[in-house]
Protein backbone atom coordinates (compact mmCIF):
# COMPACT_ATOMS: atom_id res chain seq x y z
CA UNK A 1 0.00 0.00 0.00
CA UNK A 2 2.84 2.37 1.00
CA UNK A 3 4.57 1.68 -2.31
CA UNK A 4 1.37 2.02 -4.35
CA UNK A 5 0.88 5.44 -2.81
CA UNK A 6 4.41 6.45 -3.78
CA UNK A 7 3.81 5.33 -7.38
CA UNK A 8 0.48 7.13 -7.45
CA UNK A 9 2.10 10.38 -6.22
CA UNK A 10 4.89 10.13 -8.80
CA UNK A 11 2.43 9.53 -11.64
CA UNK A 12 -0.03 12.20 -10.49
CA UNK A 13 2.56 14.94 -9.92
CA UNK A 14 4.39 13.98 -13.12
CA UNK A 15 1.30 14.35 -15.30
CA UNK A 16 0.24 17.48 -13.44
CA UNK A 17 3.61 19.13 -14.10
CA UNK A 18 3.57 18.10 -17.75
CA UNK A 19 0.02 19.41 -18.26
CA UNK A 20 1.06 22.72 -16.66
CA UNK A 21 3.22 23.38 -19.71
CA UNK A 22 0.29 23.11 -22.12
CA UNK A 23 -2.94 23.94 -20.31
CA UNK A 24 -3.96 27.56 -19.94
CA UNK A 25 -5.30 27.50 -16.38
CA UNK A 26 -3.65 30.03 -14.08
CA UNK A 27 -4.02 28.12 -10.73
CA UNK A 28 -2.37 25.12 -12.39
CA UNK A 29 0.36 27.26 -14.01
CA UNK A 30 0.92 29.05 -10.71
CA UNK A 31 1.18 25.74 -8.89
CA UNK A 32 3.76 24.41 -11.35
CA UNK A 33 5.82 27.60 -11.53
CA UNK A 34 5.74 28.65 -7.88
CA UNK A 35 4.05 26.38 -5.35
CA UNK A 36 5.54 23.08 -6.48
CA UNK A 37 9.08 24.48 -6.44
CA UNK A 38 8.45 25.96 -2.98
CA UNK A 39 7.21 22.59 -1.74
CA UNK A 40 10.38 21.04 -3.08
CA UNK A 41 12.48 23.63 -1.22
CA UNK A 42 10.57 22.99 2.03
CA UNK A 43 11.06 19.22 1.76
CA UNK A 44 14.75 19.79 0.94
CA UNK A 45 15.01 21.99 4.04
CA UNK A 46 13.76 19.15 6.25
CA UNK A 47 16.12 16.75 4.52
CA UNK A 48 19.05 19.09 5.35
CA UNK A 49 18.39 18.37 9.01
CA UNK A 50 18.48 14.64 8.28
CA UNK A 51 21.81 15.16 6.50
CA UNK A 52 23.30 16.80 9.57
CA UNK A 53 22.00 14.01 11.82
CA UNK A 54 23.46 11.42 9.44
CA UNK A 55 26.84 13.16 9.42
CA UNK A 56 26.97 13.29 13.23
CA UNK A 57 25.82 9.67 13.60
CA UNK A 58 28.35 8.36 11.09
CA UNK A 59 31.35 10.12 12.61
CA UNK A 60 30.37 9.56 16.25
CA UNK A 61 30.02 5.86 15.46
CA UNK A 62 33.42 5.84 13.80
CA UNK A 63 35.02 7.46 16.84
CA UNK A 64 33.23 5.38 19.45
CA UNK A 65 34.00 2.09 17.65
CA UNK A 66 37.51 3.27 16.72
CA UNK A 67 37.01 2.20 13.10
CA UNK A 68 39.77 2.70 10.51
CA UNK A 69 40.85 6.35 10.17
CA UNK A 70 38.62 7.40 13.09
CA UNK A 71 40.94 10.32 13.83
CA UNK A 72 39.77 12.11 10.69
CA UNK A 73 36.24 11.97 12.06
CA UNK A 74 37.37 14.03 15.07
CA UNK A 75 38.59 16.75 12.70
CA UNK A 76 35.30 16.63 10.74
CA UNK A 77 33.23 16.91 13.90
CA UNK A 78 35.45 19.67 15.29
CA UNK A 79 35.07 21.66 12.06
CA UNK A 80 31.33 21.12 12.15
CA UNK A 81 30.94 22.15 15.80
CA UNK A 82 33.25 25.18 15.50
CA UNK A 83 31.23 26.56 12.58
CA UNK A 84 27.98 25.91 14.50
CA UNK A 85 29.43 27.72 17.54
CA UNK A 86 30.48 30.77 15.54
CA UNK A 87 27.36 30.71 13.43
CA UNK A 88 24.74 30.35 16.14
CA UNK A 89 26.30 31.23 19.50
CA UNK A 90 29.40 33.41 19.40
CA UNK A 91 29.31 36.54 17.25
CA UNK A 92 32.62 38.38 17.80
CA UNK A 93 31.28 41.66 16.37
CA UNK A 94 28.75 44.37 17.15
CA UNK A 95 26.33 43.11 14.44
CA UNK A 96 23.28 41.10 15.54
CA UNK A 97 23.35 37.31 15.31
CA UNK A 98 22.19 36.22 11.88
CA UNK A 99 23.31 39.17 9.74
CA UNK A 100 26.80 38.67 11.25
CA UNK A 101 27.30 35.72 8.88
CA UNK A 102 27.87 38.14 6.01
CA UNK A 103 29.42 41.07 7.92
CA UNK A 104 33.11 41.78 7.99
CA UNK A 105 34.55 41.61 11.50
CA UNK A 106 32.55 38.62 12.77
CA UNK A 107 34.47 35.47 13.62
CA UNK A 108 32.28 33.41 11.30
CA UNK A 109 32.95 35.75 8.37
CA UNK A 110 36.68 35.66 9.07
CA UNK A 111 36.74 31.88 9.08
CA UNK A 112 34.64 31.70 5.93
CA UNK A 113 36.94 34.11 4.11
CA UNK A 114 40.26 32.79 5.42
CA UNK A 115 39.71 29.06 5.85
CA UNK A 116 36.69 27.87 3.87
CA UNK A 117 37.20 29.84 0.65
CA UNK A 118 40.97 29.16 0.33
CA UNK A 119 40.33 25.46 0.88
CA UNK A 120 37.69 25.47 -1.87
CA UNK A 121 40.00 27.43 -4.15
CA UNK A 122 42.77 24.90 -3.49
CA UNK A 123 40.55 22.04 -4.62
CA UNK A 124 39.55 24.00 -7.70
CA UNK A 125 43.19 24.80 -8.49
CA UNK A 126 44.00 21.08 -8.40
CA UNK A 127 41.91 20.84 -11.53
CA UNK A 128 44.74 22.40 -13.54
CA UNK A 129 47.06 19.49 -12.69
CA UNK A 130 44.35 16.93 -13.32
CA UNK A 131 43.63 18.50 -16.71
CA UNK A 132 47.33 18.18 -17.56
CA UNK A 133 47.51 14.51 -16.57
CA UNK A 134 44.23 13.68 -18.31
CA UNK A 135 45.31 15.51 -21.47
CA UNK A 136 48.60 13.64 -21.48
CA UNK A 137 46.74 10.33 -21.42
CA UNK A 138 44.22 11.44 -24.04
CA UNK A 139 46.83 12.88 -26.38
CA UNK A 140 49.13 9.86 -26.35
CA UNK A 141 49.34 8.66 -29.93
CA UNK A 142 47.81 5.18 -29.77
CA UNK A 143 45.53 5.13 -32.78
CA UNK A 144 44.10 7.29 -35.54
CA UNK A 145 41.41 8.87 -33.32
CA UNK A 146 43.92 9.78 -30.60
CA UNK A 147 46.16 11.35 -33.25
CA UNK A 148 43.26 13.41 -34.58
CA UNK A 149 42.50 14.49 -31.01
CA UNK A 150 46.11 15.50 -30.51
CA UNK A 151 46.20 17.49 -33.75
CA UNK A 152 42.96 19.38 -33.06
CA UNK A 153 44.07 19.92 -29.45
CA UNK A 154 47.36 21.45 -30.61
CA UNK A 155 45.56 23.77 -33.06
CA UNK A 156 43.05 24.84 -30.43
CA UNK A 157 45.79 25.61 -27.92
CA UNK A 158 47.92 27.54 -30.40
CA UNK A 159 44.91 29.34 -31.90
CA UNK A 160 43.64 30.54 -28.54
CA UNK A 161 46.86 32.14 -27.30
CA UNK A 162 48.11 35.56 -28.56
CA UNK A 163 51.19 34.02 -30.17
CA UNK A 164 48.88 32.08 -32.50
CA UNK A 165 47.98 35.36 -34.25
CA UNK A 166 51.66 36.01 -34.99
CA UNK A 167 52.41 32.71 -36.69
CA UNK A 168 53.10 33.44 -40.41
CA UNK A 169 51.38 31.50 -43.19
CA UNK A 170 54.49 29.53 -44.15
CA UNK A 171 54.99 28.28 -40.61
CA UNK A 172 51.36 27.15 -40.46
CA UNK A 173 51.95 25.31 -43.71
CA UNK A 174 55.08 23.61 -42.30
CA UNK A 175 53.06 22.56 -39.23
CA UNK A 176 50.34 21.06 -41.48
CA UNK A 177 52.93 19.13 -43.47
CA UNK A 178 54.59 17.79 -40.30
CA UNK A 179 51.21 16.74 -38.89
CA UNK A 180 50.25 15.07 -42.16
CA UNK A 181 53.47 13.06 -42.06
CA UNK A 182 52.84 12.20 -38.39
CA UNK A 183 49.48 10.77 -39.49
CA UNK A 184 50.86 8.68 -42.35
CA UNK A 185 54.25 7.84 -40.80
CA UNK A 186 53.38 4.22 -40.04
CA UNK A 187 52.64 3.60 -43.74
CA UNK A 188 56.33 4.15 -44.58
CA UNK A 189 58.54 1.12 -44.15
CA UNK A 190 61.68 2.94 -45.17
CA UNK A 191 62.14 5.79 -42.69
CA UNK A 192 64.93 7.39 -44.72
CA UNK A 193 62.57 7.70 -47.67
CA UNK A 194 59.98 9.30 -45.41
CA UNK A 195 62.51 11.80 -44.06
CA UNK A 196 63.58 12.76 -47.57
CA UNK A 197 59.98 13.18 -48.66
CA UNK A 198 59.21 15.28 -45.59
CA UNK A 199 62.23 17.55 -46.18
CA UNK A 200 61.31 17.98 -49.85
CA UNK A 201 57.69 18.78 -48.93
CA UNK A 202 58.81 21.32 -46.34
CA UNK A 203 60.91 23.05 -48.99
CA UNK A 204 58.70 22.79 -52.06
CA UNK A 205 55.19 23.44 -50.76
CA UNK A 206 55.83 26.95 -49.33
CA UNK A 207 57.37 28.00 -52.67
CA UNK A 208 54.48 26.43 -54.56
CA UNK A 209 51.82 28.10 -52.39
CA UNK A 210 53.59 31.44 -52.66
CA UNK A 211 53.99 31.23 -56.41
CA UNK A 212 50.26 30.34 -56.78
CA UNK A 213 49.45 33.32 -54.54
CA UNK A 214 47.44 31.12 -52.15
CA UNK A 215 49.20 32.23 -48.97
CA UNK A 216 46.34 34.56 -48.03
CA UNK A 217 43.94 31.65 -47.57
CA UNK A 218 42.18 31.61 -44.15
CA UNK A 219 43.40 28.03 -43.77
CA UNK A 220 46.92 29.31 -43.13
CA UNK A 221 45.85 31.39 -40.14
CA UNK A 222 45.74 29.10 -37.12
CA UNK A 223 43.19 31.22 -35.14
CA UNK A 224 40.79 30.81 -38.10
CA UNK A 225 41.37 27.09 -38.17
CA UNK A 226 40.72 26.72 -34.42
CA UNK A 227 37.53 28.75 -34.83
CA UNK A 228 36.41 26.42 -37.61
CA UNK A 229 37.18 23.34 -35.49
CA UNK A 230 35.09 24.77 -32.64
CA UNK A 231 32.23 25.97 -34.86
CA UNK A 232 31.86 23.03 -37.21
CA UNK A 233 33.08 19.56 -36.12
CA UNK A 234 32.95 20.24 -32.35
CA UNK A 235 29.50 21.83 -32.52
CA UNK A 236 28.19 19.05 -34.78
CA UNK A 237 29.43 16.40 -32.34
CA UNK A 238 28.09 18.12 -29.26
CA UNK A 239 24.70 18.76 -30.90
CA UNK A 240 24.39 15.09 -31.79
CA UNK A 241 25.00 14.25 -28.14
CA UNK A 242 22.56 16.96 -27.03
CA UNK A 243 19.79 15.54 -29.25
CA UNK A 244 20.44 12.09 -27.80
CA UNK A 245 20.35 13.51 -24.27
CA UNK A 246 17.07 15.35 -24.97
CA UNK A 247 15.40 12.22 -26.36
CA UNK A 248 16.79 10.13 -23.51
CA UNK A 249 15.47 12.64 -20.99
CA UNK A 250 11.98 12.59 -22.50
CA UNK A 251 11.87 8.78 -22.68
CA UNK A 252 13.22 8.41 -19.14
CA UNK A 253 10.73 10.97 -17.80
CA UNK A 254 7.94 9.17 -19.63
CA UNK A 255 8.98 5.84 -18.09
CA UNK A 256 9.01 7.44 -14.63
CA UNK A 257 5.70 9.29 -14.84
CA UNK A 258 3.90 6.29 -16.29
CA UNK A 259 5.17 4.23 -13.35
CA UNK A 260 7.27 1.85 -15.45
CA UNK A 261 10.65 2.88 -14.09
CA UNK A 262 10.56 1.47 -10.59
CA UNK A 263 14.23 0.89 -9.81
CA UNK A 264 14.32 4.14 -7.85
CA UNK A 265 12.05 2.39 -5.37
CA UNK A 266 14.19 -0.74 -5.48
CA UNK A 267 11.90 -2.75 -7.80
Amino acid at each position, binding site marked *: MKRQLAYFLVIFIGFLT*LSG*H*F*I*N*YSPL*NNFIDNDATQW*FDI*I*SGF*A*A*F*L*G*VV*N*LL*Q*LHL*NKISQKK*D*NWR*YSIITLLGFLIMIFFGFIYNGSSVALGPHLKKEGSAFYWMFQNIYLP*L*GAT*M*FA*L*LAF*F*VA*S*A*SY*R*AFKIRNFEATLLLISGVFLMIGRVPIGQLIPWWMSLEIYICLLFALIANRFKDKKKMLTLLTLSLLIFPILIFSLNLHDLALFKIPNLQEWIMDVPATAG*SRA*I*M*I*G*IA*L*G*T*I*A*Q*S*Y*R*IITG*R*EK*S*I*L*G*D
Partner: protein
Amino acid sequence: MTQYIKYVLIPFLTLLFYFFFPFPLFLEGNETTFVCVIILCFIVEYFIEKAKNGDKIYMRPIAAIKAMEEAVGRATEMGKPVLYVPGISSLDQIDTISGLTILGHVAGMTAEYDAGLQVPVCVPIVMETAKETCKEAYLKKGRSDLYRNDMVHYVTDDQFAYAAGVNGIMLREKPAAVFFQGKFYAESLILAETGNSIGAIQIAGTGSSSQIPFFVTACDYTLIGEEFYAASAYLSGSPEMLGSIKGQDYVKVGCIIMIVFVFISSALNGYGIINFDVSSLFRINIIR
Protein backbone atom coordinates in the same frame (compact mmCIF):
# COMPACT_ATOMS: atom_id res chain seq x y z
CA MET B 1 -2.62 -5.19 -36.55
CA THR B 2 -6.00 -3.81 -35.41
CA GLN B 3 -4.78 -3.78 -31.82
CA TYR B 4 -2.19 -1.17 -32.80
CA ILE B 5 -4.63 1.19 -34.55
CA LYS B 6 -5.23 2.99 -31.25
CA TYR B 7 -1.61 4.24 -31.40
CA VAL B 8 -2.50 6.19 -34.54
CA LEU B 9 -6.06 7.08 -33.68
CA ILE B 10 -5.63 8.39 -30.13
CA PRO B 11 -2.74 10.79 -30.88
CA PHE B 12 -4.56 11.95 -34.01
CA LEU B 13 -7.73 12.72 -32.01
CA THR B 14 -5.67 14.35 -29.24
CA LEU B 15 -4.00 16.63 -31.76
CA LEU B 16 -7.36 17.44 -33.38
CA PHE B 17 -8.75 18.33 -29.97
CA TYR B 18 -5.65 20.41 -29.18
CA PHE B 19 -5.70 22.44 -32.39
CA PHE B 20 -9.45 22.80 -32.92
CA PHE B 21 -10.77 23.24 -29.40
CA PRO B 22 -12.85 26.46 -29.61
CA PHE B 23 -11.98 27.85 -26.16
CA PRO B 24 -8.51 29.02 -25.04
CA LEU B 25 -7.83 25.89 -22.98
CA PHE B 26 -4.26 25.51 -24.21
CA LEU B 27 -1.29 27.85 -23.93
CA GLU B 28 -0.12 29.47 -27.14
CA GLY B 29 3.44 29.02 -28.38
CA ASN B 30 3.91 25.42 -27.22
CA GLU B 31 2.27 23.74 -30.21
CA THR B 32 5.43 22.17 -31.67
CA THR B 33 6.44 20.86 -28.25
CA PHE B 34 2.99 19.38 -27.71
CA VAL B 35 2.99 17.63 -31.10
CA CYS B 36 6.49 16.25 -30.47
CA VAL B 37 5.62 15.03 -26.95
CA ILE B 38 2.43 13.32 -28.15
CA ILE B 39 4.17 11.64 -31.10
CA LEU B 40 7.12 10.52 -28.98
CA CYS B 41 4.94 9.16 -26.17
CA PHE B 42 2.74 7.18 -28.54
CA ILE B 43 5.69 5.76 -30.48
CA VAL B 44 7.26 4.65 -27.19
CA GLU B 45 3.89 3.21 -26.05
CA TYR B 46 3.50 1.34 -29.36
CA PHE B 47 6.88 -0.37 -28.99
CA ILE B 48 6.22 -1.16 -25.33
CA GLU B 49 2.98 -2.87 -26.38
CA LYS B 50 4.80 -4.78 -29.15
CA ALA B 51 7.47 -5.89 -26.70
CA LYS B 52 4.85 -7.03 -24.21
CA ASN B 53 3.19 -9.06 -26.97
CA GLY B 54 6.40 -11.01 -27.42
CA ASP B 55 8.24 -9.16 -30.18
CA LYS B 56 11.96 -9.80 -29.95
CA ILE B 57 13.95 -6.66 -29.24
CA TYR B 58 17.58 -6.41 -30.19
CA MET B 59 19.66 -4.23 -27.92
CA ARG B 60 23.05 -3.06 -29.08
CA PRO B 61 25.59 -4.28 -26.51
CA ILE B 62 26.78 -1.30 -24.45
CA ALA B 63 30.22 -2.01 -23.01
CA ALA B 64 29.76 0.23 -19.97
CA ILE B 65 26.56 -1.54 -18.91
CA LYS B 66 28.05 -4.95 -19.47
CA ALA B 67 31.06 -3.92 -17.39
CA MET B 68 28.96 -2.97 -14.36
CA GLU B 69 28.53 -6.53 -13.16
CA GLU B 70 32.19 -7.27 -13.92
CA ALA B 71 33.22 -4.28 -11.82
CA VAL B 72 31.14 -5.42 -8.86
CA GLY B 73 32.48 -8.96 -9.30
CA ARG B 74 36.04 -7.64 -9.35
CA ALA B 75 35.44 -5.69 -6.14
CA THR B 76 34.06 -8.84 -4.51
CA GLU B 77 37.08 -10.89 -5.55
CA MET B 78 39.47 -8.25 -4.27
CA GLY B 79 37.54 -7.86 -1.01
CA LYS B 80 37.25 -4.14 -1.57
CA PRO B 81 34.16 -1.93 -1.58
CA VAL B 82 32.26 -0.43 -4.50
CA LEU B 83 31.99 3.35 -4.47
CA TYR B 84 28.92 4.90 -6.06
CA VAL B 85 28.88 8.67 -6.61
CA PRO B 86 25.42 9.98 -7.62
CA GLY B 87 26.58 13.47 -8.64
CA ILE B 88 26.14 16.77 -6.89
CA SER B 89 22.68 17.85 -7.99
CA SER B 90 19.36 17.49 -6.29
CA LEU B 91 16.30 15.47 -7.30
CA ASP B 92 15.05 18.22 -9.59
CA GLN B 93 17.59 17.00 -12.18
CA ILE B 94 16.71 14.01 -14.34
CA ASP B 95 20.40 12.98 -14.26
CA THR B 96 20.24 12.50 -10.50
CA ILE B 97 17.08 10.43 -10.83
CA SER B 98 18.71 8.34 -13.56
CA GLY B 99 21.77 7.93 -11.34
CA LEU B 100 19.55 6.66 -8.54
CA THR B 101 17.73 4.21 -10.81
CA ILE B 102 21.12 2.75 -11.80
CA LEU B 103 22.08 2.70 -8.10
CA GLY B 104 19.10 0.38 -7.53
CA HIS B 105 20.64 -2.14 -9.94
CA VAL B 106 24.20 -1.73 -8.64
CA ALA B 107 22.97 -2.17 -5.05
CA GLY B 108 21.19 -5.33 -6.20
CA MET B 109 24.50 -6.62 -7.60
CA THR B 110 26.46 -5.79 -4.43
CA ALA B 111 23.75 -7.53 -2.39
CA GLU B 112 23.98 -10.59 -4.59
CA TYR B 113 27.78 -10.74 -4.54
CA ASP B 114 28.09 -9.65 -0.89
CA ALA B 115 30.36 -6.76 -1.82
CA GLY B 116 30.66 -3.59 0.25
CA LEU B 117 28.89 -0.50 -1.06
CA GLN B 118 29.57 3.14 -0.23
CA VAL B 119 27.38 5.95 -1.49
CA PRO B 120 28.62 9.39 -0.40
CA VAL B 121 26.02 12.04 -1.29
CA CYS B 122 26.09 15.77 -1.62
CA VAL B 123 22.41 16.65 -1.17
CA PRO B 124 20.44 15.45 1.87
CA ILE B 125 17.22 14.75 -0.06
CA VAL B 126 19.22 12.57 -2.47
CA MET B 127 20.66 10.75 0.55
CA GLU B 128 17.18 9.83 1.77
CA THR B 129 16.14 8.60 -1.67
CA ALA B 130 19.39 6.68 -2.18
CA LYS B 131 18.92 5.02 1.23
CA GLU B 132 15.45 3.83 0.26
CA THR B 133 16.71 2.64 -3.13
CA CYS B 134 19.54 0.60 -1.59
CA LYS B 135 17.39 -0.77 1.22
CA GLU B 136 14.73 -1.97 -1.24
CA ALA B 137 17.37 -3.45 -3.56
CA TYR B 138 18.91 -5.46 -0.70
CA LEU B 139 15.46 -6.52 0.49
CA LYS B 140 14.46 -7.63 -3.00
CA LYS B 141 17.59 -9.79 -3.29
CA GLY B 142 16.74 -11.34 0.10
CA ARG B 143 19.90 -9.94 1.66
CA SER B 144 18.46 -7.29 3.99
CA ASP B 145 20.90 -8.51 6.65
CA LEU B 146 23.76 -7.11 4.56
CA TYR B 147 22.25 -3.63 4.34
CA ARG B 148 23.87 -1.11 6.65
CA ASN B 149 22.37 2.27 7.40
CA ASP B 150 25.71 4.04 6.89
CA MET B 151 26.14 2.71 3.34
CA VAL B 152 24.58 5.91 2.07
CA HIS B 153 25.97 8.87 3.92
CA TYR B 154 25.95 12.60 3.67
CA VAL B 155 29.26 14.39 3.08
CA THR B 156 28.59 18.07 2.42
CA ASP B 157 26.60 20.43 0.21
CA ASP B 158 29.65 22.29 -1.12
CA GLN B 159 30.89 21.20 -4.54
CA PHE B 160 34.64 21.13 -3.91
CA ALA B 161 34.36 20.09 -0.26
CA TYR B 162 32.35 17.12 -1.55
CA ALA B 163 35.03 16.38 -4.15
CA ALA B 164 37.67 16.51 -1.38
CA GLY B 165 35.57 14.22 0.83
CA VAL B 166 35.00 11.64 -1.92
CA ASN B 167 38.68 11.79 -2.92
CA GLY B 168 39.57 11.12 0.71
CA ILE B 169 37.30 8.07 0.76
CA MET B 170 38.87 6.82 -2.48
CA LEU B 171 42.45 7.26 -1.25
CA ARG B 172 41.82 5.74 2.19
CA GLU B 173 39.55 2.84 1.29
CA LYS B 174 40.84 2.12 -2.22
CA PRO B 175 37.56 0.88 -3.73
CA ALA B 176 37.98 -1.63 -6.54
CA ALA B 177 35.10 -0.19 -8.55
CA VAL B 178 33.92 3.39 -8.79
CA PHE B 179 30.65 4.46 -10.40
CA PHE B 180 30.02 8.07 -11.33
CA GLN B 181 26.37 8.24 -12.34
CA GLY B 182 24.53 11.54 -12.14
CA LYS B 183 24.92 15.24 -12.74
CA PHE B 184 28.49 16.50 -12.50
CA TYR B 185 30.18 19.82 -12.95
CA ALA B 186 33.82 20.92 -12.58
CA GLU B 187 34.54 18.28 -9.92
CA SER B 188 34.12 15.45 -12.44
CA LEU B 189 37.77 15.39 -13.50
CA ILE B 190 39.08 15.72 -9.92
CA LEU B 191 37.03 12.68 -8.92
CA ALA B 192 37.74 10.61 -12.03
CA GLU B 193 41.48 11.27 -12.00
CA THR B 194 41.73 10.30 -8.34
CA GLY B 195 39.83 7.10 -9.08
CA ASN B 196 42.20 6.47 -11.95
CA SER B 197 45.23 6.98 -9.71
CA ILE B 198 44.09 4.26 -7.26
CA GLY B 199 43.61 1.77 -10.11
CA ALA B 200 39.87 1.32 -9.62
CA ILE B 201 37.70 0.22 -12.53
CA GLN B 202 35.63 3.30 -13.27
CA ILE B 203 32.26 3.49 -14.99
CA ALA B 204 30.81 6.93 -15.56
CA GLY B 205 27.52 8.18 -16.93
CA THR B 206 26.18 11.68 -17.17
CA GLY B 207 23.93 13.91 -19.19
CA SER B 208 26.23 16.91 -18.70
CA SER B 209 27.66 17.13 -22.20
CA SER B 210 30.55 19.35 -21.06
CA GLN B 211 31.75 16.72 -18.55
CA ILE B 212 31.59 13.73 -20.91
CA PRO B 213 35.11 14.35 -22.38
CA PHE B 214 36.64 14.33 -18.90
CA PHE B 215 34.98 11.05 -18.03
CA VAL B 216 35.93 9.52 -21.38
CA THR B 217 39.56 10.44 -20.70
CA ALA B 218 39.79 9.29 -17.08
CA CYS B 219 37.31 6.40 -16.81
CA ASP B 220 37.38 2.89 -18.22
CA TYR B 221 33.80 3.05 -19.50
CA THR B 222 31.46 5.95 -20.07
CA LEU B 223 27.75 6.04 -20.78
CA ILE B 224 27.37 8.87 -23.26
CA GLY B 225 24.18 10.86 -23.68
CA GLU B 226 21.08 8.72 -24.06
CA GLU B 227 22.96 5.54 -23.06
CA PHE B 228 23.00 6.92 -19.53
CA TYR B 229 19.21 7.29 -19.48
CA ALA B 230 18.68 3.91 -21.09
CA ALA B 231 21.02 2.08 -18.68
CA SER B 232 18.41 1.34 -16.06
CA ALA B 233 15.93 0.04 -18.65
CA TYR B 234 18.74 -2.02 -20.22
CA LEU B 235 19.75 -3.48 -16.86
CA SER B 236 16.18 -4.35 -15.91
CA GLY B 237 15.83 -6.49 -19.04
CA SER B 238 12.04 -6.30 -18.87
CA PRO B 239 10.37 -6.29 -22.30
CA GLU B 240 8.36 -3.13 -21.71
CA MET B 241 11.43 -1.16 -20.64
CA LEU B 242 13.40 -2.44 -23.63
CA GLY B 243 10.45 -1.60 -25.86
CA SER B 244 10.60 2.00 -24.66
CA ILE B 245 14.26 2.19 -25.73
CA LYS B 246 13.37 0.84 -29.16
CA GLY B 247 10.64 3.47 -29.44
CA GLN B 248 13.14 6.15 -28.47
CA ASP B 249 15.51 4.90 -31.20
CA TYR B 250 12.77 5.14 -33.82
CA VAL B 251 12.12 8.73 -32.72
CA LYS B 252 15.84 9.36 -33.19
CA VAL B 253 15.63 8.01 -36.73
CA GLY B 254 12.69 10.37 -37.28
CA CYS B 255 14.80 13.26 -35.97
CA ILE B 256 17.62 12.42 -38.38
CA ILE B 257 15.18 12.34 -41.31
CA MET B 258 13.72 15.69 -40.20
CA ILE B 259 17.19 17.23 -39.90
CA VAL B 260 18.06 16.12 -43.44
CA PHE B 261 14.69 17.37 -44.71
CA VAL B 262 15.05 20.77 -43.01
CA PHE B 263 18.64 21.06 -44.24
CA ILE B 264 17.65 20.41 -47.87
CA SER B 265 14.58 22.63 -47.80
CA SER B 266 16.51 25.45 -46.06
CA ALA B 267 19.18 25.20 -48.75
CA LEU B 268 16.48 25.35 -51.46
CA ASN B 269 14.94 28.32 -49.66
CA GLY B 270 18.35 29.96 -49.43
CA TYR B 271 18.82 29.65 -53.21
CA GLY B 272 15.28 30.97 -53.82
CA ILE B 273 13.98 27.71 -55.31
CA ILE B 274 11.19 27.51 -52.70
CA ASN B 275 9.70 30.46 -50.86
CA PHE B 276 9.07 28.93 -47.45
CA ASP B 277 11.47 28.65 -44.49
CA VAL B 278 10.68 25.19 -43.09
CA SER B 279 12.98 25.70 -40.10
CA SER B 280 10.56 28.36 -38.75
CA LEU B 281 8.10 25.52 -37.99
CA PHE B 282 10.58 23.97 -35.60
CA ARG B 283 11.38 27.05 -33.55
CA ILE B 284 9.70 26.28 -30.28
CA ASN B 285 8.99 28.26 -27.18
CA ILE B 286 8.52 26.03 -24.16
CA ILE B 287 9.07 28.80 -21.61
CA ARG B 288 6.13 31.07 -21.18
